[in-house]
């Protein structure tokens, strides 16, 4: 039946050597993913956006979005149970689809994480400014500028100092922020209704479906654990669990937050959708104005954790692209002591911070800037999710482990993600988002063409991951003859 064992030559060290292999505890990996999804911020902000389309069906939009996120997580788990990657979805996609698609995923992830990191910095600055103003501090454009610079550099320094340290900071900050949110929303849900419930216009199925796209945007970043494959202890168990649990927990928190807010505004004309700042309004109505600064604090912390987690992921995607030979090789270097991709971090963070600080200093209002950055990020993530879901069954077929649930999951999720992508492009029609996305896509294509011409061999072999090395295998057979 077998022609004898075919033992491929094993390397003495992993192609992604230099990062601290197998050091992160499961909770630390999980915290990174949760912070990427930033459920606290999503709890406070997204229900009102979703309600604009879904009205009284807001909760259902979140339930559907959670289901979709879990499906994407299941596609991601097909890879992460079998391989430990450093480049996140990009490295995974490369094992299923051709180098062009993998490259597209890499570019989409760079846009996604880059914009999400910028959005997190902007969000943190927004709520810090509000908090400072509420506590009687100065109102000036320099408060958010200072916050962007300080928070950005702090995130960069922590990311540089070591993945373990930054993971622990993220874990602590996210834990405090989610606890704050649960307390706030628990109090609000327990509050007596302000008046008789008004009949809500029924959103219909169309409304709920339209609400799914903004609800799905609440999950972006939940896959960050995939970039920590080589650094996680027991990665084949930890990473898929971290991603799946993040989708489930974020979904549950968002459904809870949406329910609180829909109920809270049931007696107000226009309902939740008409609200500009729903949670502070509810807090004031409930007679707990002191909840509002607490909310600002929680959100600032959540955004800080999100900035830190996305910086880690962004640097690792860039690191993997460099190790693959399609990005400048310097990005593939690691710090000898801290075992982090220090060159990638040292380049990316200042560029983000300076660009963002300049934009804010030039007088761009924070709220529209945050929406813009999140919208662009969502575009990047939608592309990356679509590609990884498409790649999953192809990958399984390639290694001879295809099963029907894998095909079924892809058959369900890919058309939905495609529809979401189309809806997204249509919704952004005529806004600067489309122009920016087109420019980014053109840059990516030009980059790919350049790489194909200058480094054809590297492009063909794209997709390094933390493969099994001689020392991982028992017995002398592991050593290359």
């Amino acid at each position: 039946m077998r022609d004898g064992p075919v033992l491929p030559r094993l390397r003495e060290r992993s192609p992604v050597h230099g990062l601290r292999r197998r050091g992160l505890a499961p909770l630390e990996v999980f915290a990174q993913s949760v912070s990427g999804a930033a459920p606290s911020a999503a709890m406070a902000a997204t229900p009102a956006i979703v309600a604009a389309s879904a009205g009284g069906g807001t909760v259902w939009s979140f339930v559907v979005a959670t289901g979709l996120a879990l499906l994407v997580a299941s596609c991601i788990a097909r890879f992460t149970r079998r391989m430990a990657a450093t480049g996140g979805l990009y490295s995974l996609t490369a094992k299923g689809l051709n180098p062009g698609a993998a490259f597209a995923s890499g570019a989409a992830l760079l846009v996604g994480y880059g914009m999400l990191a910028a959005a997190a910095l902007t969000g943190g600055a927004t709520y810090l400014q509000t908090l400072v103003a509420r506590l009687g501090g100065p109102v000036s454009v320099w408060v958010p500028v200072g916050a962007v610079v300080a928070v950005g550099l702090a995130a960069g320094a922590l990311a540089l100092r070591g993945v373990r340290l930054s993971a622990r900071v993220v874990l602590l900050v996210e834990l405090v922020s989610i606890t704050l949110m649960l307390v706030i929303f628990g109090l609000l849900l327990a509050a007596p209704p302000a008046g008789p419930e008004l009949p809500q216009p029924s959103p219909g199925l169309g409304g709920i479906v339209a609400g799914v796209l903004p609800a799905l945007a609440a999950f972006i970043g939940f896959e960050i654990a995939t970039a920590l494959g080589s650094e996680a202890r027991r990665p084949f168990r930890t990473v898929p669990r971290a991603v799946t649990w993040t989708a489930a927990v974020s979904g549950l928190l968002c459904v809870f937050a949406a329910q609180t807010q829909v109920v809270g505004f049931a007696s107000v004309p226009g309902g939740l959708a008409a609200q500009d700042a729903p949670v502070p309004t509810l807090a004031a109505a409930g007679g707990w104005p002191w909840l509002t600064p607490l909310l600002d604090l929680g959100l600032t912390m959540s955004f800080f954790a999100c900035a830190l987690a996305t910086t880690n992921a962004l640097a690792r995607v860039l690191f993997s692209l460099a190790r693959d030979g399609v990005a400048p090789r310097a990005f593939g270097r690691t710090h000898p002591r801290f075992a982090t991709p220090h060159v990638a971090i040292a380049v990316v963070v200042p560029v983000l911070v300076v660009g963002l600080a300049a934009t804010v200093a030039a007088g761009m209002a924070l709220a529209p800037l945050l929406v813009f950055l999140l919208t662009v990020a969502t575009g990047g993530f939608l592309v990356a999710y679509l590609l990884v879901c498409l790649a999953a069954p192809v990958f399984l077929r390639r290694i001879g482990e295809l099963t029907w649930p894998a095909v079924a999951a892809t058959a369900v999720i890919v058309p939905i993600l495609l529809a979401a992508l189309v809806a997204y492009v249509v919704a952004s029609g005529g806004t600067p988002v489309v122009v920016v996305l087109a420019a980014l896509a053109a840059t990516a294509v030009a980059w790919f063409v350049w790489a194909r011409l200058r480094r054809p061999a590297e492009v063909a072999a794209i997709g390094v991951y933390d493969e099994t090395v001689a020392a991982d295998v028992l017995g002398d057979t592991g050593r290359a003859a």
Partner: protein
Amino acid sequence: MTTPRDPLPLSGRQPRAVRSALAVLEEVVAAGPGITAKEISAALKMPQATTYRLLNLLVGEEYLVRLPDLKGFALGRRAARLAVPVTTTPPTAARAVVDHLRGLVRWGVHLASFGAGQVTLVDPDPDHPPSDAALLARYPQVSALGRLLLADQPEWRALVRELRVFTEHTVSSTSELAARIDEVAHDGIARQCGELRADRGCLAVPVRAPGDGRLVAGLALSGPANRVADPNTELVALLREHADRLAPLLA
């Protein structure tokens, strides 16, 4: 280390799943590295989906590894812990080096190998009997030799089963142990003062293969606990010199 949990009672089809998992492990050993999931499924006449799940579980627990093509499987390093390590007597030339050191110092001199992820004494000092071999193998964190082994493994936590306290000096918290392990990795020497027996202490240095630097053995000095805490510059230099001489003989 895992926190103790209530073991779930085996129920329903679980006994069959355990048998199947063991059969999968055996099949990988029998067929040799490179066997694919489909081949295992065919050889064991097991449904494919079940085989894939068991394989992913065993890979997740690191008893098996996937080879770089992601198709083939081989036994992982963790599987070594399923077998009793075979004690091999070191070559005469190596024993001569250890005896030479014994002639120079008044402390006990022990040589241990680290095969199978365990401390195995291969040349204990006959004049200064070391602690019980089973204790050393079971609680690597309390001996200097065991700490050398732990410091060499990124996943050392998996090897520390229980932070058992032997004396008032025994390290009893994971964070403190982690700091000690980091020190060992940094300094290239492990020490333990009265943590296993209140009156004894130990110093140990690694013996590394000359080519690739992998850890093959550890050379230890055991003496009075209060003396081990001293810098012992000359003793350490002597210990390192003999470890270097052992390297080409043991690797």
